[in-house]
């Protein structure tokens, strides 16, 4: 399998005039979490649906677990798990009935399907809720069951399509813990998300997709490096203070201070981090500027996105 769990070259997918994928490339190393990041409509879901054999590609070539998705879809399906907004569990059945049904449909046979269901319910901390209808599950429990259902055959590659969209922070943390545990067990994960924080927390490598094309592929830190190093950030109590703060910050930065009038925030890139922070804090205090907050900030993937695409992510749009 040459060390790559997913390999996609120049994928094309057209819907009428619209090019959902326009020469999309992707490689995912075995045993890693790879983030696929992009705004709504960028092509993330189309890419996942092609790689998980749900839709046909119009051009290019893709292998998953070393198998060609176009020529060996059945073999690919035996080695992947798909979960997230588009692959659901049955709401009427209980958690256990769901896992047993999927187990039988994965051709484990009745006895092994039952054993595997019990095992997964335990692993995903769902034993207590096992015999309740899924319709009564919380959002986090449902996603965990969803994950469990896609893990029945312990697949080589797991596609996680926006696994935490619409979840509260606590449930989100639970799902992240489950994902980390799976990767520790040897599964490769391709994670699509609109949440930069999620990609940052889970993925060791990130591909940024926009308008059907991969526009960057790097580690989270490498991507952040694209927008420069750390920034100093000062938040003031009143708008009238901003010009004075800009003047002070300009002395320590090697770039241009930026001011955000609505958030009352001034920020600028700095090289010598601690010295700059000390200098700015002291000067502002001497001049009697009322500061709400001051600190150093690593660039977020949000900044990266803005830099790469010229537009912000539509994060929180779904939340």
């Amino acid at each position, binding site marked *: 399998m040459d060390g790559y769990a997913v390999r996609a070259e120049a994928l094309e997918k057209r819907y009428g005039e619209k090019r959902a994928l326009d020469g999309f490339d992707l490689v995912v190393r075995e045993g890693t979490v790879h983030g696929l990041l992009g705004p709504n409509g960028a092509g993330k879901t189309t890419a996942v649906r092609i790689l998980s054999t*749900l*839709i046909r590609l119009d051009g290019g070539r893709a292998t998953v677990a070393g198998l060609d998705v176009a020529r060996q879809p059945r073999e690919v399906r*035996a080695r992947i798990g798909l979960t997230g907004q588009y692959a*659901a569990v049955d709401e009427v*059945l209980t958690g256990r009935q769901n896992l047993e049904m999927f187990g039988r449909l994965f051709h484990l046979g009745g006895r092994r399907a039952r054993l595997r269901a019990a095992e997964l319910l335990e692993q995903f901390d769902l034993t207590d809720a096992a015999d309740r209808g899924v319709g009564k599950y919380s959002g986090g429990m449902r996603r965990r069951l969803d994950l469990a259902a896609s893990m029945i055959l*312990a697949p080589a590659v797991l596609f996680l399509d926006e696994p935490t969209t619409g979840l509260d922070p606590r449930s989100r943390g639970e799902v992240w813990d489950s994902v980390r545990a799976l990767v520790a067990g040897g599964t490769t994960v391709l994670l699509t998300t609109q949440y930069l924080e999620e990609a940052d927390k889970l993925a060791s490598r990130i591909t940024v997709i926009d308008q059907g094309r991969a526009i960057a592929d790097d580690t989270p830190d490498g991507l952040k490096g694209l927008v420069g190093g750390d920034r100093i950030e000062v938040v003031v109590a009143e708008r009238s203070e901003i010009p004075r703060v800009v003047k002070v910050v300009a002395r320590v930065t090697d770039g241009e201070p930026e001011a955000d009038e609505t958030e009352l925030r001034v920020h600028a890139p700095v090289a010598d981090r601690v010295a700059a922070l000390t200098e700015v804090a002291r000067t502002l205090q001497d001049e009697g500027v009322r500061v709400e907050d001051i600190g150093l900030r690593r660039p977020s993937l949000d900044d990266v996105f803005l830099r790469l695409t010229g537009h912000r992510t539509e994060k929180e749009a779904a939340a």
Partner: protein
Amino acid sequence: MSAVDLSTTSARSGTYWALADCWNIVRRGLTHYQRQPVNIAWQLGFPILSVLLYGYVFGSAMKVPGGGNYTDFLMPGMFVMTMAFGFINTATVVVYDSTKGVIDRFRSMPMASSAVVAGRGVTDLIVACAELAIMMLTALAMGWRPDGGLGFLAAFGLLLWLRFALIWIGVWLGLLVPNPEAAGGLFAVAFPLTMISSIFVAPQLMPDWLGWIAAWNPISSTAAATRDLFGTPGGTGDSWVEQHALLMAGVWPVILTALFLPLAVRRFRKLSR
């Protein structure tokens, strides 16, 4: 790691697994009814209510051309109506599964994709048998007295045959409509379509043009043929289609299937586009 052996290489044939997958989808469908028995009550509610309304409220005012008891005329029509409305149930489940991602989950698994649709069809036929049994017991309680024997079985078979054909319309519509709410709207279409038939009233009592449409309504043939087989004929007009009700009760479902099975399959394949 799992303590369960997860290898799925098997010496069994593709046909074995296609049937096994289909049966597992059927089990799922039946478990739904087991977990939500109220659903079957809803499905039966309308026909049973209709039986009571038409039988008791209008019954005395209704005439059957050529004489005969209206209850005997009405009951086979009620059975046909229950079968006819069945396509709404099929469509509702299919639209739910396809919009919520259940069908996508199945399609991402190494199972036979034909089982998704075939399993739905078999489930619907099993449920149709249960519905018919309950309807018939209600009818017997109201004084319906059919002939027994082979004719009865043949009538039962023709009713299921109609339901079978309507599965494909249901699957097709289920994959066509955008959301479960829209599937609910199918009732507004189905209701007049079942009214303009021989289910409640003999076509010859309608204005000529309407009677002609009603007579050629596929479900009219099943209604007339089953009335005949239950030994309670009546209200049969002189038109060719009414005179050949038994033949047409066999032929109409073939035509419907020939028309809508390919449409349903095409729609299902389109999911991969």
